[in-house]
C-alpha cells in the first residue's frame, strides 16, 4: 500500500462520515416527527407512517439504494450518486429512529402530562418543556446505537458509485491483489469513528445529568 492508497482510504472515511451525518441530521428529527404522528394517533397520517416503517424495515439498504438510483429516473427524477446515497441512508434511518422515538413517547408517564395540563400548560408547551428533555435522555442510547449501525451499514451505498471507506479498500485490494491490509485499516477507521460517536453520547448523557442536578 502506498501513501496515495492511505489518502484514498482517509477520503473514503470522510465520505462515510459526511453521508452518515447528513442522514442522521435528516433522520433523527424526521423520525421524531413521524413518531409524534403515530403517538398522537393522527388519522391517515399514522397509517402512512406505519406502512412506511414496516416497508423500510423490510428493505435491505442495497436494494433501497438500487431502487432509488435506478428507479427514480424511470419516473422522471434524475438523482446524482450523492443525493441518492443520502436519500437511501436517510429513508432507512428515519424508519428506525421513528420506532425508537415512538417507544420513548409511548412509555412516557401519563401522570406527568396530566399534571402539566392541570397547571394549564398547552400541549406544545408540555411537549417541549416536560416530555422532550426526558424522552431525549431515554432514547439517546438507542439513537446512538442506530447511528453506529447506519455508519457500518453505509458501505451498501457503494452500489450507486459512492467511494466510501469500504469501496476504497476494495479498490486498493483489487490493484494489489492483497485485500487484507486495506480492509484492516478500514476496520480501524470504522472503530475510530464509532468511538467518537460513543464518546459524544457519554458526554451528552453526563451533561444532561448535570442539568438535572442543577435544576
Amino acid at each position, binding site marked *: 500500500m*502506498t501513501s*496515495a*492508497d492511505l*489518502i*484514498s482510504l482517509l*477520503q473514503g472515511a470522510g465520505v462515510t462520515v459526511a453521508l452518515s451525518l447528513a442522514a442522521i441530521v435528516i433522520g433523527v428529527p424526521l423520525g421524531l416527527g413521524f413518531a409524534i404522528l403515530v403517538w398522537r394517533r393522527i388519522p391517515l397520517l399514522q397509517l402512512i407512517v406505519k*406502512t412506511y416503517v*414496516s*416497508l423500510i424495515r*423490510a*428493505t435491505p439498504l442495497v436494494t433501497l439504494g*438500487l*431502487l432509488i*438510483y*435506478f*428507479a427514480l*429516473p*424511470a*419516473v422522471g427524477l434524475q438523482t446524482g*450518486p450523492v443525493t441518492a446515497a443520502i436519500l437511501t441512508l436517510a429513508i432507512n434511518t428515519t424508519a428506525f429512529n421513528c420506532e425508537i422515538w415512538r417507544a420513548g413517547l409511548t412509555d412516557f408517564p401519563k401522570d406527568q402530562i396530566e399534571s402539566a395540563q392541570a397547571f394549564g400548560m398547552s400541549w406544545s408547551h408540555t411537549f417541549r418543556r416536560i416530555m422532550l428533555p426526558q424522552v431525549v435522555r431515554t432514547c439517546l442510547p438507542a439513537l446512538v446505537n442506530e447511528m453506529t449501525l447506519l455508519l457500518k451499514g453505509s458501505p451498501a451505498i*457503494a*452500489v*450507486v*458509485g459512492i*467511494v466510501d471507506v469500504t*469501496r476504497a479498500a*476494495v*479498490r*486498493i*485490494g*483489487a*490493484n*494489489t*491483489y*492483497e*485485500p*487484507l491490509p486495506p480492509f484492516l485499516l478500514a476496520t480501524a477507521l470504522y472503530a475510530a469513528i464509532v468511538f467518537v460517536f460513543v464518546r459524544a453520547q457519554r458526554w451528552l448523557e453526563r451533561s444532561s445529568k448535570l442539568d438535572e442536578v442543577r435544576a
Partner: protein
Amino acid sequence: MCKARSFACATWRLMLLAAITALALSCIGTGQAASLDDIKKRGYLLVATEDDYKPFEFVQDGKPTGFDNEMLELLKKHAPFEVRQDIIPWTSLLAGVSTGKYDVALTAALITKERAKSFDFTMPIADATHYFVKRKGDQSITEIKDLNGKILGIQAGSGLLQRLPELEAMLAQTGGKVGKVVEYTSYPEAYQDLALKRTDFVINTIINLQALVKEKPTVFEVGLPVSGKSYPAWAVAKGNAELLAFLNGFLAEQKKNGTFAQLQKKWFGQEFTDLPAKWEPEF
C-alpha cells in the same frame, strides 16, 4: 379497513407490501435508452466503468487506469460530443445500462447468450478464454481431470459461471464432476480465499489471470483452459443500433491505426490480432 393484529390483516398488508415492491421493481425495467440522436442533442455520452477489474479498469493512486480507461481517453478525443464517466461496481453496472441511466457499459463484459437478450455488444476487445488458476506448486492439480471434486471459486453473476457446463463436460469424459462452487462478489476475495486454501482453484479469463500471476508469481500459477472461445466487449442497451455502430466505428479505427494492439500489449501482455468483428455466443 381491517382490525389490527388479525392474521387476515397481516396477510393483506404483506400482499400490499409485495405488490408495491413489485410495482417499483417493474418500473426499473421500463427505462428508455438514449439513442445517438438523443446523445448528440443533450451534448454528452454517459459511460460507466468498473473500479476493481484489473487490467481492464482499476484505480491506482486514486486515479482510474487500465485498458478500458485508456480507450476511454481516446474515445473522448474521437467523439464529437462530451463523454462523461461514472465509476460504479459491477453489481449495478449492467442494471445501469438496461435502465437507461448509463449509455455504455465501458467494461470487459463477457458476451453471453443470456446477456445478448438484453444488451447489444460491440466487437470483442480481447480474448477471454477461461483458464483455471491454482496455488503455486499445488501438485494435486496438473491436468483437467484432477479438478474432479475440487472446490472452485468464481465470481457471482459472471459470464464465467454460465460456462461451467463446459468444464462439467470435460470432467465427465474421465468420470469426474465439478466439486463445490463458491461464489464471490468480486475476484480479489476469490484469489485471497484460494491463497488461504479455502478453495482449490479459481476460474477467470486468461488476461485477468496473467495479470494476477504477474503481480503474485510466488503465490499463484495459471493452469489450463476450461472453456471454448469467449470474448469480452462493451455493452449498450438492446436495440441501440446507432450508438453501437458509433462505438464499433471507433474501435475499428483504433484497430486500423495500431493503437488497439499497442494498448493490448501494454495491459494484457500480448496482442490479440484475430479477434472476430462480431461474435455470436454459444453459451
